[in-house]
């Protein structure tokens, strides 16, 4: 078991979230999405952020990507403060967000261009084909996103994110819109690719199984706050059929369910009081 365990205890912090708060403000009201959240993520670590919708997990990811700015606190990447989005943090969105006017290959090449690395046009083409082959889409290089299925689109989005050659990969419920059969395939693909490319990954999900399958650590969120953090401690690579039924898996699953239920009870309580 020990051979494939990731030992990250000596790794430096890649991402540091320090006492971050964030409010959504519209014309009439102010809604506090995150309150004094702190979290450190090690280099090469795969962290899942798990929670129900509206708990602020996607907000936290958009702060990491730089699309939103924290009201207070700071987020550090390699010790430097994040102020805006950049190609050093690749993002995969749930709604694919591919450029419809570019082919699958064109989308990946766009990512390669934005990586800021100096490649010739020829090298870019070769690289783009490599990345597409990586996600199992070598045959669809010249198809436009409109001609691809949801699962294929998300593969292209993953390839485009890899093409940025960033150390950090941020995924916001990437497989939420993909049907369950394909989801498993994509989970294994992402798990494999992130290990191969030594990525530091933050993966937002509301799927307990997905979180156990993929991550080194699971951060469970409740509205605005981190409720608890669990170390997964299972060897990589993992396969769902090997995991299900094992004591370690059942134990983790139970703990996660318990923390979810506790959260639901809180909600019921508060509603009863109101």
């Amino acid at each position, binding site marked *: 078991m020990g051979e494939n365990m990731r030992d990250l205890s000596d790794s430096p912090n890649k991402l540091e979230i320090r006492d971050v708060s964030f409010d959504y403000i519209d014309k009439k009201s102010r809604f506090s999405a995150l309150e004094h959240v702190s979290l450190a993520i090690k280099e090469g670590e795969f962290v899942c952020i798990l929670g129900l919708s509206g708990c602020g997990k996607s907000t936290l990811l958009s702060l990491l*990507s*730089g*699309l939103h700015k924290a009201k207070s606190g700071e987020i550090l990447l390699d010790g430097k403060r994040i102020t805006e*989005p*950049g*190609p050093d*943090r*690749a*993002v995969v*969105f749930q*709604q*694919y*967000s*591919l*450029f*419809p*006017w*570019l082919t699958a290959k064109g989308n990946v090449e*766009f*990512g390669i261009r*934005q990586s*800021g690395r100096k490649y010739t046009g020829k090298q870019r083409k070769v690289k783009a084909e490599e990345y597409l082959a990586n996600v199992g889409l070598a045959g669809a290089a010249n198809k*436009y*996103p*409109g*001609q691809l299925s949801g699962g294929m689109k998300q593969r292209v989005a993953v390839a485009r994110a890899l093409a*940025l050659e960033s150390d950090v990969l941020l995924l916001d419920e990437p497989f939420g819109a993909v049907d369950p059969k394909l989801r498993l395939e994509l989970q294994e693909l992402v798990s494999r690719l992130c290990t191969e490319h030594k990525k530091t990954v933050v993966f937002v999900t509301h799927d307990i199984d997905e979180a156990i399958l993929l991550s080194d650590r699971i951060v469970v969120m409740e509205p605005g706050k981190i409720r608890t953090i669990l170390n997964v401690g299972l060897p990589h690579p993992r396969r769902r059929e090997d995991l299900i039924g094992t004591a370690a898996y059942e134990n983790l699953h139970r703990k996660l369910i318990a923390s979810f239920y506790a959260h639901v009870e809180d909600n019921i309580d508060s509603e009863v009081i109101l």
Partner: protein
Amino acid sequence: MKKFLLAPGMYIEFGIATLLFVINIVLTLALPYFTVHKAYYDSAAYIAALSLIFLIYAVSVHMNKKKSTSDIAVVIYAFFAFWEVAYKTGAVRNDLLIPSPEGLFHVFVDKPQEIGADVLGSLQLLFWGFLLAVVLGTLLGLLAGWIPRVREVLLPISNAITLIPPLMFSAYMIMLLSTFRQAAVAVIFFAVFWPTLQGTIARVGQIDKSIIEAARTMGVGTLGMLAKVIFPYCLPGIIRSISKSLRGAFMCLSGAEMLGMNLGIGYFIEKYKGFADYRCILAGIVVVGVITTVIDIAVNKVERMVIKWEV
């Protein structure tokens, strides 16, 4: 031969259209004049026109395999047959206002150079006015669509100006600018610029937010966003609006030419109105119709060539 050219089940329609084509030829060649007319014209140009229509019909029915294509051909040929019979039997009394179809198409044999020069003149003016308007309107529209402050200035102004028919400017433009050509270009520019600007602003506003966010997370800056993301995103809409505004532009151009140009197809029509030569006026109208149709088809072809990603 027809087996290869036609989809099954279309022989009857094709047969009827072909029969009507032949009937038209027979009518023009063999049907005698029952009344006395002021002038008689040779059938050659008319037969050439009928044949050209048949050629276009045969090619398009082969390409698009639609029954309605045959129906359109039938309607056109029936119209010509009716016209021919009405003229020759004397049902049409006013020779001057309503010429024979032979007479109408004979204009193209009488004055090919004049018509050619006028068409070329019109197209040149159209090209410059249109090019300027589309390029400037799109550039400014992208900018205004992306930067709220620019948009909030331009949108109300353009809303007010688009309500004024561009032709109303033309009398003033002719005075203001040194040549009629410049005036005509200016009128076309006004006809196309404001709708293009407004359309582009609207399209930028409708852009999928997640695409912008994806581009931002990849570190795309403001210029790159406009050139590499927003422009290609809006391109299908821009091209689609071109065919609409081209039609508007051509209308304005013909109008402007009629108001005081010395060249162009609008001028051609206006000139022969002065001579009360309605045969030439009708020929000019036919030319305008043909040009707008050809432009329309060309724009559609370009659209399909450029926009491969939208089916």
